[in-house]
């Protein structure tokens, strides 16, 4: 319903603009403004979502988690601060849902002091209410934050217990069943770092994934995504870049596991207005060029 209204309003308007341009009239900039405002507003009001399809770089992360045998060991590191959270927190939540849904074992940690509190928000808002059966110490555990940046990785790549004598709640690692067969990061099946700064995905690749020969994936803020691209596909199995990457992952998650359909998917929701606005701006550029070539042709004839 909302989609039809929006499509009619915006599509009709754009066609009208195109018609005006072909006739050689210049479009008032206020109409451009009106379009942008209306587009974003309609998309927000009707909660428009578009069929995000995972690009290979996102799909490969998803497939990896999807195809690992149940009970695989996955590290998820919260390497970000509140400023980056709107962009990357949806990724972390999507990872949590996917990993626990596939009955893997999830090890949380953080290389950023600020990641700790964001991590507990995720635990309380996503993990505990949505996976009431998940048992602490068996299905997931929280190692918390350790100071030392990539130095932490240098240690845990050889031995977890040296860096983390206990988890964030003070339990000895040996008392947690899920640490029985874990000596170091090398025993993990997948490492995931979510973050946008330093230390972040790059440090995980260079100090943990590469030396330990463990599959590494990442999620990063849009700003740092281009810098990480050259590590894919050899050193990074995949990467979620910005809100767009997060939305693709969320879409893939809903497609494969429909039970998440009614859960909050903030990235997917954010992408609705974004996609619409980008389509409209691109349409403007096209219309502008049509008008330009039209007027040049006329100018050439006269």
């Amino acid at each position: 319903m909302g989609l039809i209204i929006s499509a009619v309003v915006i599509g009709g308007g754009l066609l009208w603009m195109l018609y005006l341009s072909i006739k050689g009239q210049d479009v008032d900039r206020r109409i451009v403004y009106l379009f942008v405002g209306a587009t974003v507003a309609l998309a927000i009001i009707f909660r428009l979502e578009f069929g995000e399809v995972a690009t290979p770089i996102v799909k490969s992360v998803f497939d990896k988690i999807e195809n690992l045998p149940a009970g695989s060991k996955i590290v998820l590191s919260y390497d970000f601060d509140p400023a980056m959270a709107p962009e990357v927190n949806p990724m972390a939540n999507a990872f949590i849902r996917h990993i626990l849904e596939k009955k893997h074992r999830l090890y949380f940690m953080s290389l950023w002091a600020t990641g700790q509190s964001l991590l507990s928000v995720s635990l309380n808002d996503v993990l505990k209410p949505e996976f009431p059966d998940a048992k602490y110490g068996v299905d997931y555990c929280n190692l918390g934050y350790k100071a030392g940046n990539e130095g932490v990785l240098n240690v845990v790549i050889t031995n977890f217990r040296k860096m983390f004598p206990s988890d964030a709640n003070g339990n000895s690692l040996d008392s947690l069943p899920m640490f029985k067969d874990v000596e170091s990061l090398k025993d993990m099946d997948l490492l995931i770092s979510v973050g946008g700064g330093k230390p972040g995905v790059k440090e995980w690749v260079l100090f943990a994934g590469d030396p330990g020969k463990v599959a590494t994936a990442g999620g990063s803020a849009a700003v740092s995504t281009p810098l990480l691209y050259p590590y894919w596909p050899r050193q990074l199995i995949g990467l979620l870049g910005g809100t767009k990457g997060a939305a693709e992952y969320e879409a893939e998650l809903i497609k494969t596991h429909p039970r998440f359909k009614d859960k909050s998917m903030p990235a997917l929701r954010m992408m609705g207005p974004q996609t619409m606005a980008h389509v409209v701006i691109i349409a403007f550029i096209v219309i502008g060029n049509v008008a330009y070539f039209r007027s040049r042709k006329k100018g050439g004839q006269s």
Partner: protein
Amino acid sequence: MKRQIPLVLVFVFGVLLAIQYFVPSEASQRGYEFVLDWITIIGIFAMVLGIWSQIHVGYNKIKHRSEDWQYSVVTLVSMFAMMFFGLSFFGGLHGTIFRLIYNNVFIPIQATIFSLLAFYIASASYRAFRARSAVSTVLLVAALLLMLRVIPTGPLADPINKIGNWMLLVPNLAAKRAILIGVGLGGVATALKIVLGIERSYLGKD
């Protein structure tokens, strides 16, 4: 006297601070910090000039009843109100009313003005991205490719992503470097012109 002393001051402080950069000793560090402090403190006195300018311009408008003088009243009243509520009696910067005004008037306007950029970026794209010449076509295509990344484009999404990220990484780096090297040189040249007194238009005539 009117011109010589300022020129001497510029030269002396310019040379001293330029040299200071190479001298790590404690005296030199302290000197550097002092000068930075001095600039801040002189800035406080300059603030008086700023208020004075505000009041002067506003007062003149109101006095001569020039067009839109009413709005000068709004500006001056809100400025003094804010200063009044920022007094220590009301709790200074953490006073309730002060924060209330800041959070409920200042912040919404700020966010809205910033969001105007969404409209402007659209109108600028509509007007400016036209394939007038080879150079403007390059600009247009690069911008289009980066915008297309956001839209689900099916099988095209992956190559567009790859090219987009590559453009943000590689040509971007080259262009930034070329510009920064020039900026570095230009900045030194400008500073040198000032210190040597070649450029002195800010120092007045007589």
